[in-house]
């Protein structure tokens, strides 16, 4: 289902099948094999770590440690890793650009592009940013998914 996706790829998060919540980016991808995978009843397991809160909303533990709230997803099923209560389902970004997204009345494309914009803007740590990061942000603004919106 989500195999072959990599870090920084976009995914769609659903609270129930067909009930779209939002887009998010894969932060980390790890592969478990052998004993580690057998813990989960498999011989091979791809895990995707997806932040469900953006960096601005990250929680801070009582000891002051910054905690990223990760959703840990089995790439084969798109479901949360076994053992936790299932709250979310993750799928690839839908390929249905001209279909109206019933929750907002916009097209899926417009809704997803808007959410990518908000996620990207929320995902910048302005206090610790360096020139390389800034140039990357500028590049996204120059040639990325925002371009289409200028034309409208």
């Amino acid at each position: 289902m989500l195999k072959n996706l990599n870090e920084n790829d976009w995914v769609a998060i659903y609270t129930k099948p067909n009930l779209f919540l939002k887009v998010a980016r894969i932060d980390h991808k790890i592969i478990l094999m052998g004993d580690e995978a057998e813990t989960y009843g498999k011989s091979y397991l791809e895990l995707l770590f997806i932040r469900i809160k953006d960096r601005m909303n990250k929680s801070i533990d009582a000891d002051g440690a910054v905690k990223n709230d990760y959703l840990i997803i089995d790439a084969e099923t798109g479901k949360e890793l076994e053992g936790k209560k299932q709250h979310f389902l993750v799928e690839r970004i839908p390929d249905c650009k001209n279909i109206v997204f019933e929750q907002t009345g916009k097209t899926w494309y417009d809704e997803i592009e808007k959410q990518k914009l908000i996620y990207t803007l929320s995902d910048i740590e302005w206090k610790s940013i360096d020139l390389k990061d800034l140039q990357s942000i500028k590049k996204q603004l120059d040639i990325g998914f925002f371009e289409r919106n200028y034309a409208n």
Partner: protein
Amino acid sequence: MKDIIQTLIEINNKLSQVEGAYSKDEIVVRKINDVQQSIVLLAKELTKTGTQNVEELKRE
């Protein structure tokens, strides 16, 4: 330092364009305004630090 400030200004200008495209969407406009505020604060902080460094160099 100059490159960073210049890039921040360019990002800020691009964001103003994006804001225009999403002018009817309150959530996007608010988010862009928050980011632009962070950019201004960062630019001010960098400029201040830069000035201080220049002053320190002069003293040395």
